[in-house]
């Protein structure tokens, strides 16, 4: 069994703030981390390896410093880390990214047949959720997105059974390998690296592959291979705010004046929205 995890290094977007005076990003203290969904992908692969004989490779397209997340993956139990790094890969949108990854997976496949690819559902910096579907389509692998559970894995029959989140519930699906799954955060809680794991990972070598190593067609890489371009960047346009009232200076007054603003025409004769809502009438049940 050969499992490939696709990893991305992302800025910890929770920390990214905008300086509203200058409209610039405040980068101070913003760390680069492994995309949290990809960490779940690694965890999923490592759990499979604990039960079945597997080789796990991790690939990451990014600049030289993205090596750190591959090393993190090694410390968690991944066997082989490959950094796809080349100036020609820069500026890639999802189409060019899925091409680059597909080439890399094909190379890995020549060394050892690839059965399963695990990607995070999405990356937290772009939130596009498109690399997985693109990669599966290019390779002709079965595609299963939004996976919340791995029910069973049958290497001898080359089958996998997964749970997939859709709007109305969960599908339980069986599919023949090779397949690509994209995983949700709740699939598995990622472990922390053990000390021996950490120590060992430091000594391991991370292979760096450039465009020649993946036998890529330069026209399909990076910015050249990307149909979409950024025209301009702006900050979200703010909604105009209204007055605020301080409850400490009179609670009833604050509430009344707020209601006056909000409900000028809200409790009018027909109340279309309100009536509809009452009809729904479903109470929140908790979980």
């Amino acid at each position: 069994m050969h499992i490939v995890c696709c990893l991305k290094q992302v800025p910890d977007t929770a920390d990214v703030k905008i300086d509203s005076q200058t409209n610039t990003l405040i980068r101070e203290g913003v760390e680069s981390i492994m995309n949290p969904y990809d960490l779940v992908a690694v965890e999923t692969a490592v759990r499979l390896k604990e039960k079945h004989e597997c080789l796990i490779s991790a690939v990451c397209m990014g600049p030289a410093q993205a090596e750190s997340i591959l090393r993190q993956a090694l410390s968690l139990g991944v066997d082989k880390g490959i950094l796809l790094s080349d100036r020609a890969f820069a500026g890639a949108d999802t189409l060019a990214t899925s091409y680059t990854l597909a080439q890399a997976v094909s190379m890995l496949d020549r060394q050892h047949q690839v059965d399963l690819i695990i990607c995070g559902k999405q990356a937290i910096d772009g939130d596009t959720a498109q690399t997985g579907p693109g990669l599966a389509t290019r390779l002709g692998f079965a595609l299963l997105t939004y996976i919340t559970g791995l029910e069973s894995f049958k290497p001898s029959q080359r089958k996998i059974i997964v749970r997939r989140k859709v709007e109305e519930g969960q599908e339980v699906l069986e599919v023949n390998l090779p397949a690509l799954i994209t995983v949700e955060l709740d699939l598995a809680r990622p472990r922390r690296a053990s000390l021996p794991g950490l120590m060992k990972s430091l000594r391991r070598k991370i292979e760096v592959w450039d465009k020649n190593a993946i036998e890529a067609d330069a026209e399909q890489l990076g910015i050249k291979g990307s149909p979409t371009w950024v025209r301009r960047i702006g900050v979200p346009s703010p909604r105009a705010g209204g007055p605020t009232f301080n409850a400490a200076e009179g609670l009833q007054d604050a509430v009344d004046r707020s209601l006056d603003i909000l409900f000028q025409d809200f409790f009018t004769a027909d109340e279309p929205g309100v009536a509809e809502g009452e009809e729904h009438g479903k109470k929140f049940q908790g979980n």
Partner: protein
Amino acid sequence: MAKNSKGIETAEIIADKCIACQICIAECPVGAIELSPEGTARVLPEVCIGCGECAEVCPVEAVAFDKAGRKKFKKAEKPGPRIPVPGRVVAVYIEHNGQKAADVSWELLGKGRELADKLQARLAALVPGSEINGLYSRVQNIGCDEFHVLEHKSLYRYVSSLYGHALSAMVRRVEPEILLLGATSQGRDLAGVVATHLKTGLTADCTGLDIEEDSGLMLMTRPTFGGNIMATIFCENHRPQMATVRPKVFPMPVFSERECKVIRHDWSPPDDARIPELIDFIEDTTRAGVDITQYPVLIVAGKGACSPDSFPMLEELAGLLGGTVACSRPVVEAGIMPYERQVGQTGKTVAPRLYIGVGVSGAVQHRVAIQGAERILAVNTDPNAPIFQVADAGIVGDYTQVLPELISRIKERKKSRHD
């Protein structure tokens, strides 16, 4: 401006403004720009030839470069923009269950009509499925000029590879300039597959779509960097220009009657399609049909009201106004409410008539998803909470005191209105 040892005025990256899109790195003709360990671009002055190409292509003006000292160099020819053909088509993928189209598909038909009118193009609905009779009984009322149907029994349920293949086949025949899909779980999955088949550009989760006047290109605006920045994207040389849009971003349209042709397409599934077998379906009972986007009033609990004790109060308020309770992300993370109730960039975009935020600070990732609310009330102890900047009215105070007062005043108002 700095000069290098060869006396060339070099470009410099303003790290604060750089968003690490890497466009300059790719466009630099001599490879003089790299990504620094801090994650921003930087120029290697000794390699820089002072051509200023990086300053030209930077979307955020993060390159300091003195144009006066610009050194000319021969630029590789880029293909010109595709000349738009008359009789163009704007297409919308209709997500449906055989009987009814998803709301987001309607919303996109509304937007699609607007874009088509600007381009003087036809609006086409693309509808793959198995038995979809229920859908085209009233095609003259959906704002479309064409209704394309591809029926095949294998499409009785959504399978990425089959739907991807079918929709790609329809697009190859209809040749639309633009293809819009809802950013539902199905739409996002499908869009990625179709864009890859067609080798075209795709912009996910757009919050704004427009036509650029002189070029006729679609401008697609989407939040990026965790919602801190809005990027406007375009797709110049590939067709169709594809975008997904989340539900409730665009309003529900009202269409007048319009002549609409129904066109049927033949198709057979590819032999090598990998079809997962559905062996079970577990209906989500915790959700029990609650879709927060459908309620006219939302009482949204934030981390500041993240306690099971507060729920009776929140529910009473919601019940009084005919709404339901929703929440911010930390409340979901705390395990107090299910993900389906989450409002925000990674939750749901909502457009209720009234949004009441209780102990919600109003982080950008939350605010982007409530832009469409008709009225916003915020209750927060912190007078500087960003939510107040977007609220029509705000009450600075502890919700445990404010909410009971709010509830009793609303009761009184309702009562006096009935009297």
